[in-house]
């Protein structure tokens, strides 16, 4: 028997894969408070594949053939080499015919690419046609800022050397509108003015007055080391690094009003058995006498007499000076005169030799010297 084979020729199908986006768009916004709009954990987004087929031979009905999709797969990434999304992948759920529901928010810095691939069996030929599509979810940082910064220090902050507490905390209040900016969203930089170059630089461990708090909203300083420093705080919201606000204070050492007097606490009246004369410097302020004045002042005790041209002689330093009673001449016409010279002292300063800080047992040595 002779045979002849008839071949069926099918014109290739026109197959188009679309991705319907249900319940939002591919883009979110994130505001300065870190809130997403929409929040996909509450308002999920569905990506629904749709397959449209057109058969030039009109064997198959033209139109939607989504129900014919097979082997549907989603991947995190831009191709099928990414991480495949399964039912256990957090933030996603898979539905019928390749539908993917996204319950995950996307950070502005990390757009999320999703890759979809699927198959469709041509009913005429039983051959599988593969289609794929990529979508990218993005987030725009929405910056709505009305920032203000205050510190709890006056523009000029007098620092009294007499305060018992050496430490002073300068605390900042950083607001966006009327709302405080959470610490996690704020960046703080405490700076000091370098007087030699008139430039601001970050306060660090090398600054003797610095105790703690760099990078936070509360700077702790040690008053004893402050003569005159301009201190500035710069702050910005993490979402807008270029929107910097600042606040400044000029801290300076200030003794206030004071007056000194010399008292003879022993030997004011020199008798034959008086052996010593004790001179004591007393510092009066509007708030009372300064206790341990040598802690704050440079005090020099001087002796002279009421004779014309009598020399002045330094008899001691500090709060008290004790001299032998013989210093007072036993001439009723010559009076012993005691006096004191008192000068304010600078704050503690780093002691340097040849431009290098002197260290003792690994610690920087500081000195306080009389003011000129």
């Amino acid at each position, binding site marked *: 028997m002779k045979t002849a084979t008839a071949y069926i020729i099918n014109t290739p199908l026109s197959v188009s894969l679309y991705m319907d986006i*249900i*319940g*939002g*768009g591919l883009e979110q916004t994130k*505001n*300065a*408070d870190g*809130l*997403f*709009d*929409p*929040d996909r954990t*509450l*308002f*999920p*987004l*569905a990506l629904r594949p749709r397959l449209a087929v057109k058969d030039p031979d009109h064997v198959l009905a033209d139109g939607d053939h989504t129900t014919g999709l097979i082997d549907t797969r989603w991947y995190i990434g831009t191709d099928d080499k990414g991480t495949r999304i399964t039912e256990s992948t957090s933030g996603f759920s898979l539905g019928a015919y390749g539908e993917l*529901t996204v319950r995950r928010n996307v950070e502005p810095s990390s757009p999320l690419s999703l890759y979809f691939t699927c198959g469709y069996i041509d009913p005429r030929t039983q051959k599988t046609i593969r289609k794929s599509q990529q979508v990218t979810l993005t987030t725009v940082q*929405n910056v*709505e800022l*009305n920032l203000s910064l205050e510190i709890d220090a006056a523009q000029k902050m007098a620092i009294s050397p007499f305060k018992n507490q050496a430490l002073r905390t300068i605390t900042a209040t950083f607001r*966006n*509108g009327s*709302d405080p900016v959470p610490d996690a969203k704020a960046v703080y930089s405490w700076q000091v003015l370098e007087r030699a170059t008139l430039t601001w630089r970050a306060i660090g461990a090398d600054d003797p007055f610095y105790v703690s708090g760099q990078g936070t909203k509360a700077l702790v300083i040690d008053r004893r080391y402050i003569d005159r420093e301009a201190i500035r705080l710069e702050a910005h919201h993490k979402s807008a690094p270029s929107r910097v606000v600042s606040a400044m204070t000029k801290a300076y050492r200030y003794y206030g009003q004071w007056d000194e007097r010399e008292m003879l606490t022993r030997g004011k009246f020199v008798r034959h058995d008086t052996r010593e004369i004790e001179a004591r410097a007393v510092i009066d302020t509007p708030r009372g006498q300064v206790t341990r004045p040598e802690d704050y002042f440079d005090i020099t005790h001087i002796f002279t007499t009421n004779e014309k041209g009598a020399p002045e002689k330094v008899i001691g330093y500090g709060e008290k000076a004790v001299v032998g009673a013989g210093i007072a001449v036993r001439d009723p016409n010559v009076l012993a005169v005691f006096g004191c010279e008192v000068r304010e002292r600078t704050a503690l300063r780093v002691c340097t030799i040849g431009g290098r800080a002197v260290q003792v047992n690994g610690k920087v040595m500081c000195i306080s010297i009389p003011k000129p």
Partner: protein
Amino acid sequence: MSRPRLFSVPEAIATELNLTELRTHDGAGRVLLSGRDLAIYGIDKALDEGAEELSPDEAKEIFHI
């Protein structure tokens, strides 16, 4: 600072927006939609048809989110 808006809407509105399956229901015929969900529909129109704007705390309480 603008915050994302939340609305409790009658189920009919969510149905019209084809969002009933994707959104949270309170079990009493109302659905939680975002301001963006309603933008297409028209927020004023939705409010006229019984939608209510909610604070985040109210939304948590009503929809147990």
